[in-house]
């Protein structure tokens, strides 16, 4: 399969899967099988593209012109490849998990769930492979709309309200800020193609660059920079597989992916390092890291604590990119993969606890590690990755982040990274301590052991992946390094 055909298939296959899922509404087993099959095929297609990318090629696919001179076009570059790998791999795992979760909790409207999941993955592939900012914007908006039915899945009052916040914030930021930035960029440069070294050099002076950066960073609501982060905790009304999708597979990753892409390929690392008006980004990102961690400390609801942890971790990616050295950009890319694996494990664990024990608050979880050793073991690994300790993937990306910051003698990010590591420890370790070392005091409604096998299978896979990525970072590392090369 040639590169451009692979791109077309990667985007089209999940849509085809959606159709088949909807047609098999009455046959749940066939429907689930289709989801798994589609996810597997997508993963194979994406993996199949890998050799071409690692050898330095960048397959392209140009479709029609949306505006004269602005085509819907795709081009696979290292960062996009990394994102696509993470998303497609985790879709397969999440599908396995979803089957277990949705069936065990006897959720309604499962067809709609699987259908829109697939559409969301298709838009993610579109974002990952986009060759210009217009294509990315189109798929970015489609992603917002296709995840809405997933967020409001339960259709109760809280879900609808949460959905409103979700769509409200994301659409507001993307229209009022991001679209304005995109049109402005087009107006200034006459192109929106992602180009190594950026397209804005010499086209605008300092204050305009600073303002444009503001529009892009706050326009990318999915990256959850404070104060645009509110949609993330609001989206916790969704069932856990959706939270896993939002936080690890698709939505937030699309956000920070866009951030890195814009910094490296629209502005250019060099341009930003000499523009003083762009310095605010590192401080806002740093503040987000710390404030989100502080808020996380105070949450008793497990999913909410994880939500704020995500806000904090996303800001890691942004701050790494904002350090503006090749190594830190590499670290940012690595962290996309590392955080995805770690966070999805944590969310799977949270869903597992809800399914088996119907518990949602951390204060109820004393002693649960003895009943659910696999779940809490996986949780512990995920937590270690968030904190950034070996032998988990989170350690790798943090190491390179520090490396990059120290190299360019930027002490602010160094301080932030140290402080936040302490804070991460403060809000994750107590959960593990409670689970394993405290006696059970909140008696569960009924006796329970581990969660259903599908769920346990999924979370052990991702936990293993987190550790594996530490020992064999191979592919992720190579792609990240290639990106760093483009950022020079």
């Amino acid at each position, binding site marked *: 399969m040639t590169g451009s055909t692979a791109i077309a298939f990667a985007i089209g296959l999940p849509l085809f899967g959606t159709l088949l899922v909807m047609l098999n509404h009455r046959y749940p087993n066939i429907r689930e099988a289709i989801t798994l099959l589609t996810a597997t095929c997508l993963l194979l297609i994406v993996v199949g593209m890998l050799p071409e990318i690692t050898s330095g090629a960048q397959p392209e696919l140009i479709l029609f012109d*949306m*505006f004269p001179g602005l085509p819907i076009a795709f081009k696979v570059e290292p960062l996009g490849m990394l994102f696509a790998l993470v998303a497609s791999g985790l879709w397969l795992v999440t599908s396995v998990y979803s089957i277990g979760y949705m069936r065990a909790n006897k959720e309604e409207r499962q067809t709609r769930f699987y259908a829109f999941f697939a559409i969301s993955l298709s838009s993610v592939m579109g974002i990952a492979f986009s060759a210009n900012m217009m294509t990315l914007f189109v798929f970015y908006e*489609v992603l917002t709309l296709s995840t809405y039915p997933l967020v409001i899945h339960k259709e109760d009052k809280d879900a609808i309200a949460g959905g409103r916040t979700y769509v409200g914030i994301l659409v507001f930021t993307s229209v009022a800020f991001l*679209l304005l930035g995109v049109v*402005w960029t087009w107006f200034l440069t006459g192109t929106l193609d992602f180009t190594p070294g950026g397209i804005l050099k010499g086209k605008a002076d300092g204050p305009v660059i600073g303002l444009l950066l503001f529009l892009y960073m706050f326009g990318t609501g999915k990256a959850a920079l404070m104060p645009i982060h509110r949609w993330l905790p609001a989206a916790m009304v969704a069932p856990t597989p959706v939270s896993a999708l939002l936080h690890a597979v698709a939505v937030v990753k699309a956000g920070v992916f866009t951030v890195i892409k814009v910094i490296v390929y629209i502005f250019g690392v060099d341009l930003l390092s000499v523009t003083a008006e762009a310095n605010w980004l590192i401080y806002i990102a740093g503040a987000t890291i710390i404030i989100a961690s502080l808020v996380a400390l105070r949450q008793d609801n497990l999913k909410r604590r994880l939500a704020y942890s995500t806000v904090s971790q996303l800001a890691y990616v942004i701050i790494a990119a904002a350090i503006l050295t090749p190594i830190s950009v590499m670290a940012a890319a690595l962290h996309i993969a590392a955080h995805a694996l770690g966070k999805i494990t944590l969310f799977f664990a949270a869903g597992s606890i809800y399914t088996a024990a119907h518990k949602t608050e951390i204060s109820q979880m004393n002693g649960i590690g003895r009943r659910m050793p696999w779940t809490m073991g996986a949780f512990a690994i995920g937590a270690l990755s968030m904190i950034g300790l070996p032998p988990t993937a989170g350690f790798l990306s943090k190491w390179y982040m520090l490396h990059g910051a120290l190299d360019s003698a930027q002490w602010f990010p160094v301080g932030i990274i140290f402080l936040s590591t302490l804070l991460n420890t403060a809000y994750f370790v107590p959960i593990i301590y409670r689970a394993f070392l405290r006696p059970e005091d909140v008696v569960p409604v009924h006796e329970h052991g581990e969660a259903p096998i599908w769920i346990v299978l999924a979370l052990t896979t991702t936990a293993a992946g987190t550790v594996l990525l530490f020992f064999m970072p191979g592919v992720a590392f190579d792609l990240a390094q290639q990106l760093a090369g483009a950022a020079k």
Partner: protein
Amino acid sequence: MIAAHLPVLQIVLPLICAPVCMLVRHRDWSWSVALFASWASLAMSWMLLQQVLTTGTVSYALGNWSAPFGIEYRVDLINAYVLLIVSAIGAVVVPFARASVKAEFGTNRVYFFYTSYLLCLTGLLGVTITGDAFNLFVFLEISSLSSYVLIALGRDRRALMASYQYLVMGTIGATFIVIGIGLLYAETGTLNMVDLAERLAHRPSSRTIGAAFAFLVVGISLKLALFPLHLWLPNAYTYAPSMVSAFLAATATKVAVYVLLRFLFSIFKVKLSFGIMPLDNILLVLAVIAMFAASAVAIFQKNLKRMLAYSSVAQIGYMVLGISFANVNGLTACILHLFNHALMKGGMFLALGCIVYRAASVNLDDLAGIGRRMPLTMAAFVVGGLGLIGVPLTVGFISKWYLVLGAMDRGWWPVAVLILLSSLLAVVYVWRVVEVAYFSPVPPNAPAIEEAPPAMLIPTWVLIGASIYFSLDTELSVGVANKAALQLLGGGG
């Protein structure tokens, strides 16, 4: 042979079919006559557009009496584009009308309905195609009078009042227009548009010309429903039969915008309209107010037709904003939005027509859970709504892009921001409908409602589908709009 006489055939065919409809008293036969006339008009507009694109402006002397004494039909790019819009909407709406009119209007005297519709179509096509200022007024009156009849035929008792209100305001508007034309005639001695343009260019600006300009702009703005002269629109669209709302929402105001473009750019030309008269600032302020105020009012409407009516006032604000920029991107946005809005709004009103057909109400309170019972209809409505917001992959996005670019070209940065902020208001009123239609439980004593019949769904989805298709393949819509904009700015036409 036909090709040479296309311009006059475009008018004569629907005009002759109107009395034929009257004579053919049977309900379905009169519908067939209307259908034939609409589809034939579409074919002719398409052929005319192709002619203009290949050979340039088409000029036709009525009765072989040459201009400036005879009436000339003059088709350049902007006309051909608007002719296509009007006839296309007509061609899609008439198949829909068959079932819809039966339900809303009863079976008595349906032929009156189709006769009025054909006269309205003739009038609108005539306004668009003519190159003579007084002839324009005549056709404008034909289309207005027949639309008053069409609106009054609505089932609700307030339809008559709404039609009367429109009649009063519309007549004021038309009177202003004819006064303006009269003043121009007094000043220049000609009624032919090309001749007028030439003679006005050579005259020093006088009070007569200024007065003519003012009367014309105000009169046309009333027909256009530019804030604050839009007061007739909400009632007219709400109480008219569904097919009429769809047709008028998609055509009448578009034709009025065309008339404004014709007078401002071809006759008075940019130097007078925007240089000497401060029209850019006036239109800018009114347009921005329309965009925000009308959208805000739409948010609070429970009657979905009224909500869409206010939304139309806001969308007309966008078109007029494009005119106020007086640059290529702004005009392209305006002309493009004539096409795009016709597709979206036409489709959404047709979807409401489907709902009226089954549920007999368009009040949000009565429509809880309707998304589940009429999935295809509500899906069409939602896609149209996404277009109003300006989501990519809908035509609304394309229009917004050009509009924002136009603002940036002009250097009016705050306006660019305002355009984007106002589209966010649409999110609120569209999402309200989504939540009620899909996520509200169906009340236990609600009557059983099923999906609308294919005869009504297909026209709805033709328009909505087009609103998605033309966001991907913009060659026709944007290409012609762009060329037309350049032609207008060059003072051509």
